[in-house]
Structures are given as C-alpha cells and as structure tokens.
C-alpha cells in the first residue's frame, strides 16, 4: 500500500472509530431527514414541483459536503498538531504532499458516504418527477468538485495555522464567504455584480449548474461544459495551493 493510501485508509478508519467521525454522518442524516420531512409535510413546501424539491435538497447536500470538508479538513493537520500526533507523521519519510493527498482522498470517501446517505432522501422527494438520474449524476460531479475545492483549501489552512480552532474559524469564514452569493436575491443576482459573483464563486457555479440540469432540463452532453470547466479551474488552483502549503509542514 502506498503512503497516500496508508494515510487515507487510516483517516477513513478514524471516521468509523472516532466519535467525531460518525457524529458528522449522524448530524447529516438528521438534517436530511428534517428537510425531507419539511418538503413532504409542510403545506407550502409540499406544493413545490418535484424537480424544485430535488434542487433544494441537492443544495442542502452540497452545503453539508462543504461543511464536512471544513470540519474534517481543519482537523487534517491542525487537529493532529493539537493532539500531538503530527510530529510522529513528520518524522516518517512520508512527505507533506503524501500526507495531504492521503487526507484529501479520505475527504472524498467522506463525500461518497454522504452521497450514498443522501440518495434515498433524493429518491423520496423526487422519484415522481423529472431528471432524477441526471440530478444524481450532476450532484455527484458537483459534490466531488466542491469537496475537492473546499477540502484542499481548508487542508492548506490547517497545514499553516497552529490550532484546530483557528483552522476551523478560518474554514467557516471561507465557507460563509463562498455561500453568501447564493443567498443574494433574484434581482441582485441579475445585476452585473451579481453575475460576476455568480461566476466567481464555485458554490454558486455548482448551484447554477444543478439549476440548469434539474429545473431547466439542460441535461444534454456538453451543455454544462462551461461551468464544469470553471469548477475544474478552481480544483486546479485549490490543489496547487494545497501542494504549496504541504511542502513544508511545521510543528
């Protein structure tokens, strides 16, 4: 097993054995259950079109994925530093890049688990409507990309700051900063600034792509190429930042 796989495997095992790991999935399932109940039980929300309900649920899933990336990513290096386990890792011949890539891989496994957890909820609220399979496919793509972006950026922070708390605070600020444009009103989003923010923000790009696929049925191959390329650009930048940050990890 390679050094990267060794780190990833241990991180995934920690998800199972450590309380904080399972706690995240339990919280995620509670949030999805509550939201699913609202969508089918609330008088106003239950009137929503199935596609609209799937889109809203997809947004929640992406937010949860980003939050998991923030929490687990902050713990990546800063948490190890707090628990005094980092020194033993740095003593080994595994490079900072090996460790970072292993931890990022484990984050992707976390996303896969969250996705698998979310599929039944999506099916429950959207099985009667259109584009559910396309929604599942694009949600998987968007989530994988967002998880990589947030995971890489927060892991970079975690490699640089001295404590888990600092990494978590900075990660949450990044998350809020990224999610804020999504909360802009429809008229503001139509303005020039709104449009610029929409294209600058990976979260907004992902949500707009899901909007186009789920609500507007733009599911054909190549129709979402531009947003996917923009997101791929963000992935490249985030991974590059992670590579730079992890080259020399200090105690």
């Amino acid at each position, binding site marked *: 097993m390679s050094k990267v796989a060794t780190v990833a495997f*241990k991180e995934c095992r920690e998800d199972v*054995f450590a309380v904080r790991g399972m706690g995240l999935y339990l919280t995620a399932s509670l949030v999805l259950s509550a939201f699913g109940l609202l969508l089918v039980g609330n008088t106003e929300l239950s009137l929503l079109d199935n596609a609209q309900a799937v889109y809203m649920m997809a947004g929640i899933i992406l937010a949860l994925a980003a939050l998991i990336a923030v929490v687990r990513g902050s713990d990546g290096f800063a948490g190890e530093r707090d628990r005094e*386990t980092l020194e033993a890792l740095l003593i*080994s011949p595994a490079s900072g890049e090996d460790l970072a890539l292993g931890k990022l891989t484990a984050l992707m496994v976390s996303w896969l688990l969250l996705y698998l957890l979310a599929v039944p909820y999506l099916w429950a609220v959207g099985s009667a409507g259109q584009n559910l399979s396309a929604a599942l496919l694009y949600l998987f793509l968007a989530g994988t990309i967002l998880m990589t972006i947030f995971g890489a950026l927060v892991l970079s922070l975690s490699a640089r700051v001295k404590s888990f708390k600092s990494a978590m605070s900075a990660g949450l600020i990044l998350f809020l900063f990224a999610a804020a444009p999504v909360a802009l009103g429809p008229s503001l989003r139509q303005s020039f600034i709104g449009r610029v923010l929409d294209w600058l923000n990976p979260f907004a790009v992902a949500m707009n792509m899901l909007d186009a696929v789920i609500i507007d049925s733009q599911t054909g191959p190549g129709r979402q190429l531009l947003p996917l390329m923009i997101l791929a650009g963000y992935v490249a930048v985030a991974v590059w930042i992670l590579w730079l940050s992890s080259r020399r990890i200090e105690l």
Partner: protein
Amino acid sequence: MNIIEVENLQKTFHGKEVLRDLSLTVGRGDIYGFLGPNGSGKTTTLRILFGLLPKDGGRVRVMGQDIDRQDGAVRKKINMLPESHGFYSWMRGTEYLQYMGGLYGRHLDKSMRRYLLEQVGLNPEDTRSIRQYSRGMKQRLGIARTLINNPELIFLDEPTNGLDPKGRRDIHGLLKRLNRERSVTIVLSTHILDDVEHLCNRIGILSQGKIQYQGTLKGAENEVAPHYKFHFRKDVESETLKSIPGIHVLSVENGWLHCRLDGARPDQVVAAMVETGIPVSQVIRENDSLEEMYLRRTGGAS
C-alpha cells in the same frame, strides 16, 4: 568516525535566541546524553538534527550529509522518539506499527510486528487499545516504532520522563541492548542524571543555548574531585591526618574525616592511614560529582 557533526548552530524563535553557536559531535556507536535544564533548547536541537526544524545558522552534518542538502536517503536510516508519543489512542499496538510501517513504505506483516513488539518487551497478543497502555508501555511502543526502518541512529527526547524507577531501568536495559546488539547510535535528550549515568558513554551539557561541556562521562566525573568520608574506630588528631599525603582535609567530626583527594586514589590513602596507625573502618564516596558539575555548568537551573 562521527555520525553527527554540528558547528555553530543557531536558532531564534520570535526574536529569542534559543541556540547560540552550539557545536557538538557524536561518534558512531555512542550513547550520547544530551543534558540540559528544561527549556534549554534540547528538543529544538534534536528537531533541527532530524530535519524537522530549519536552522538559522551554522553547519549540521548527519551521517556525512549536510542537513540542508539531504535527499531523503538519510531519513531512511534515522529515527526519532519525540517527547509527545503521538499515538492514535483508538488503535492497538500492532495496528499502529502497521500504519507507521506504511508511512515508511514498508508492509509490516504479522511476524514482523510481533518481532518488533517482542524486541521492546510488549506482548504481541495484547488486544487492548493504546489508550489503555501504561506510560511505560507507550514508551516501549514508541521505541518499537523507531525500529521500523532498522535505523543506524535514533534520537530520543526525554525517553524516561514520568516513568517509575522500574520502568526507567527497563528502558535503560532496552536501549543498552539496542546499542550493543544492533549497533544503533543513540542520542538521548534528558534532564535526568540517572539516565546519563546508567546509559551514556559521552555527554553534552547544554545551557543558555551553548554546549557547556562535551566529553566522556568519565571525564565529566573527573572534572569535580570527589569528596570522601573515612570512618575511624577511634578518635584521631587533626594534625595526624594532615600528615597523610594526597588528601585535603575539609572537616573532622565524630570519628569521621571529610576530605577531598588531591591526586591520590582512595586505596592509596587508606594504605597510608593504616601505615600511620590510623584504624580505618569505612570509606564513603561523598557526593554525586556529575550532578555537581551539571549544576555548576547550568548555573543550578533545573
């Protein structure tokens, strides 16, 4: 042949000079005791030697390679046990070794893990998680970890800190065995003089960012002339004692002569006393000279 050569090492943290022109050498096969009070820069020095911290100045060569130009080959031949164990408490001992082996690019099969655990006196069949280990067991597991890559040089940072006397003796025995049987050079940072006296053949005393003494343990002990107490079966006049060659009388009280030897050996003094008709019944070496020298060199800091 020296396995470590350090010249004028400097390190500053936030404007505070921690290491000032520190120079030391460690020979291959040595058990080198790196002594110094808390906060004197021992851990910083070890981390720099291992390549975990960048230095601000000076020259460091480990296993013949400049630390700034290391290509990773040296890292494969050395290992370190930091003061904080850094274990994942939910793992079992064998799982932990397997994980760390993976980070060394080695697949440690069951027999190899068993061998490593047995080398340090841990039971390979122990199914408890590391959080249930005693401090001594954790220390042993840490030493097992340092053996994963079959190193030629091991750095140990305060390896007996917090251990009871038996635990300390066990670790001493283990380290001596590793040095003897596997020819591992050991650099041991500690402020516990007992460790140094039982383990080390060479020592370096660090204080105020500099090496205050470096040499053999024997040399350190010789630096301070030891005090001796001689007990006599009957009272002896001070004037008679002053005629004995090779002693410097400090006091005579209740049949006890307290003195320092000036060039003479205790047996020679006893022989001279018996010849003069002084009935010597007991000889006691009075003080721990290493401790005295340590305190003198470090300004009495602890």
